[in-house]
């Protein structure tokens, strides 16, 4: 299967590019930080370690994967290897989705690696749910990074767009809560701004509700809520893949 070959190439490039070492370093940094925090806490030491290490590893995983995707795709475009690939007798959908599948597999491997140390402080069931959620979040990050890397002309603009989307998606809930707080003014302008914000939220994935350290500390959500949260992520992943395919199909050969 050509798509599988493309996916395998993505994984091979990540291994040869030193991503494994970077992931290992992030893991070590997380463990070192947990040891340091354990010395400072006067209570809830285990919860502190779990929450902070989970939050740190989540950010590291997203950063590593997004930069890997953007750098890899931009290099392929700048070296004109993409043009060569487009000349092959492979449909554009296979080419795009093959790459995306490789990046998703890479994200799943990072999620599995980063979930392992959390077993030191949380139950296996909670870590499993957190890890699966991280894998799906990383799949979404891979799809967004691939879309931006393909559609925007520069590496910096692709990375900036990726970071903007990710940070906004993680804070939109808090921004909406502030906008509709009791101290908010009851004016037409404010109402319009609030509605505009709600509109923006509709276009974003609910990243503030998934891969929560709360699941490791207190309790995981019930099965129905969990499936609906991950379902929302998968829908957004499909949207990003469709948008990316649309843009890729328009690209001149």
């Amino acid at each position, binding site marked *: 299967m050509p798509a599988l070959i493309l996916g395998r190439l993505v994984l091979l490039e990540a291994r*040869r*590019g*030193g991503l494994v070492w970077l992931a290992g370093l992030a893991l070590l940094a997380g463990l070192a930080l947990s040891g340091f*925090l*354990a010395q*400072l*806490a*006067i*209570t*809830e*030491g*285990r*919860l*502190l370690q779990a*929450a*902070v290490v*989970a*939050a740190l590893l*989540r950010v590291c995983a997203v950063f590593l994967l997004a930069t890997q995707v953007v750098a890899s795709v931009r290099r392929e475009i700048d070296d004109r290897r993409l043009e060569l690939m487009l000349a092959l007798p492979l449909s554009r959908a296979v080419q795009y989705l093959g790459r995306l599948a490789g990046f998703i597999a890479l994200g799943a491997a990072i999620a599995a690696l980063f979930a392992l140390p959390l077993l030191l402080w949380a139950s296996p069931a909670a870590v499993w749910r957190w890890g699966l959620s991280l894998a799906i979040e990383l799949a979404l990050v891979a799809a967004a990074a691939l879309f931006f890397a393909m559609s925007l002309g520069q590496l910096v603009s692709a990375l900036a767009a990726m970071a903007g989307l990710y*940070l906004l998606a*993680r*804070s939109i*809930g*808090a*921004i909406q*809560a*502030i906008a509709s*707080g009791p101290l908010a003014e009851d004016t037409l302008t404010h109402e319009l701004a609030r509605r505009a914000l709600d509109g923006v939220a509709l276009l974003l994935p609910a*990243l*503030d*509700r998934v891969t*929560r*350290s*709360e699941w490791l*500390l*207190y309790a995981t959500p019930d099965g129905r809520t969990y499936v609906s949260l991950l379902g929302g992520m998968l829908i957004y992943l499909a949207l990003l893949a469709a948008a990316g395919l649309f843009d890729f199909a328009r690209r001149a050969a």
Partner: protein
Amino acid sequence: MTRDERPLRQLPAGLWLALALALAAQLAWRTHEASPRVREAELPPAPSAAALRLASFGEPEATARLAMLYLQAFDYGGANPTPYRRLDYGRLIDWLAAILELDPRSDYPLFAAARVYAENPDPAKSRLALEFIYREFFADPDRRWAALAHAALLAKHRLHDLPLAQRYAAAIQRNARSSAVPLWARQMEVFILEDMNELEAARIMLGGMLASGAIRDPDEARFLRQKLDELERRAARK
């Protein structure tokens, strides 16, 4: 990863010298700079819980705990003989309230308020911390009773304010309903009224908490044992 590189010995001596000089200058500069000392009474105003939530990027639990570690560092340190003496308790309470609002299920803010900040020798400051615990207790009595139980003991033995201690004990008795709350905590009013000394009362309370399994965190157990040792040393000196 392999790169085509020139051997190190082929680099011009000037480059080596520039690198060594720059490194030496950096080390000298940092050594000369004063290292961060214990920050005294310069706690900035607390952000709102909403602002903290925004800054947490969807990780309120981790942010709440890191904010507690940040707060702990103010006006405290090994060389400081009177920790928290200069701390602005009005701001401190605002910080604790914001952190508690960020993660209402965390025990950390109330534990620190009861076991660290309320033990300030300044009665006015101690009262501020105790009242904070009392106010926040009602939001989740079954989870927050332990902090208020300690507040009742402090009110009796440190502030010598029996009505205040009784008010706290009565609040636990009336509001803590969970079976996880031990009987002695629900009957605290009696043990407030009894004529026992602070060490005896603390022994009963901590012994009861450890025996009931209410303290599962090893750091917390170690911290409480240290506190009990301190009390014993103080009682032995009297």
